[in-house]
């Protein structure tokens, strides 16, 4: 298992690499439990967050992860509209590179932008979300959270529910969880399911997907989908696909409920469930920090001078 140069998605990953990273994340979580949540491991390294799409939670999570490892952090925010005007994505990156940064955490509105960045930059690139395609650190923190609950994902059924077609969270989880032996199902209305989702079974039958599930992951429904005509009406979505207590009873008793956030209470998820005992959303956030610390460690340490 060679050193990790970038984290763009899970192409070429095997179970051993996933487990190694999650193991490091466990060690990082211990750091987060200390009164002083800081270790000097990445002292002298600089991490840049380069976000061409708005984000509060993910950006802060990465910033914290870097700072907890004593790395310096610089931030660049660009609007997606500047890309349309032709202000060069590449130029922005090369300007940052001229400042000799070590890692770039990139979030961008179009698939493939993290790969393009990795072609041009000398540092490590972390994909914090490229369009609808991938969001690997989210999948890692989801896996971490699930393993805390279920101890092993071997043979476990994980149901992902919602706007799967537009979800990089769904795509990355469908790519990652089977590496740990999980059986992934993805359910949603016909207009919100992709033609193919490697790693997952697609179905419009929500009950079938939830039946016997060991864990349920609910995706955010964006209002834009109605505007685009991908979904006839919100009312219909809620009636047919909202995850309610009753629907959740089809899953295994105590099955944890995950959501990448931010949640639309009473849209994709019944409000009471969002804050209920099954919800692991807070654990996900904490896991996110530990996982991102581990990712930065794996990318920056041992990259050889």
């Amino acid at each position: 298992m060679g050193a990790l140069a970038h984290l763009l998605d899970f192409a070429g990953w095997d179970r051993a690499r996933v487990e190694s990273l999650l193991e490091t994340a466990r060690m990082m979580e211990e750091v987060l439990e200390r009164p002083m949540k800081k270790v000097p491991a990445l002292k002298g390294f600089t991490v840049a967050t380069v976000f061409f799409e708005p984000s509060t939670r993910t950006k802060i999570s990465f910033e914290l992860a870097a700072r907890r490892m004593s790395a310096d952090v610089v931030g660049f925010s660009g609007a997606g509209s500047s890309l349309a005007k032709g202000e060069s994505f590449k130029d922005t990156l090369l300007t940052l590179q001229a400042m000799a940064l070590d890692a770039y955490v990139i979030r961008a509105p179009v698939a493939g932008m993290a790969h393009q960045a990795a072609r041009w930059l000398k540092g490590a690139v972390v994909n914090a979300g490229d369009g609808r395609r991938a969001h690997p650190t989210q999948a890692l923190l989801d896996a971490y959270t699930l393993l805390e609950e279920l101890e092993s994902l071997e043979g476990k059924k994980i149901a992902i529910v919602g706007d799967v077609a537009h979800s990089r969270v769904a795509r990355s989880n469908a790519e990652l969880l089977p590496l740990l032996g999980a059986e992934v199902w993805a359910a949603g209305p016909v207009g919100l399911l992709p033609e193919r989702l490697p790693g997952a079974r697609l179905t419009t039958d929500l009950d079938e997907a939830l039946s016997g599930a060991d864990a349920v992951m609910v995706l955010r429904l964006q209002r834009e989908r109605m505007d685009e005509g991908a979904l006839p009406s919100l009312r219909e979505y809620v009636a047919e696909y909202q995850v309610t207590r009753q629907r959740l009873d089809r899953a295994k008793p105590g099955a944890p409920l995950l959501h990448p956030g931010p949640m639309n209470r009473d849209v994709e998820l019944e409000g009471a469930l969002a804050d209920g005992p099954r919800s692991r959303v807070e654990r996900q956030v904490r896991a996110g920090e530990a996982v991102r610390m581990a990712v930065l460690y794996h990318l920056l340490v041992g990259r050889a001078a």
Partner: protein
Amino acid sequence: MRFKAKVLEPAEIERALRRMAHEIIEKNKGAGDLALVGIHTRGIPLAERLAALIERFEGVRPPVGVLDITLYRDDLSEIGVQPKVRETRIPWDVTGRPVVLVDDVLFTGRTARAALDALVDLGRPKRVYLAVLVDRGHRELPIRADFVGKNLPTSKSEVVKVKLRETDGEEGVELWER
């Protein structure tokens, strides 16, 4: 690498640890608030053994924590390998306690320095001691051990191998030549 000599037999290791336990008790004027922290990897079984010995002599067993210094190493930006981060578990409060850091070999002093940094990040110990089974010289930092099992002058080309039954299935301290 070729084997040069066995410098400590199992019985000698045992005797050295007993003496060190007595020295620790003496220095600390009893078992008191004492706590031991074993540095990964072989510092941990050594710390456990010292804790058991102190219990035998004083009737009180000091708590033992484990410390991984990977995230505190001073060479992380230079090395070409990715050291595995191992567990740090110190489930008691470091603040206000006398703490004995325990390791198998003291060499350049860099591991001890990293352990010291890690420890003070976890709290404010009253005092920190360093106990090592073997001090082989060649310090690169102003670090000294308070309790030493054996002083072993070595040359830089030699390698000191500590084997403990808990980690290696056998006991002994050996000297090898690169």
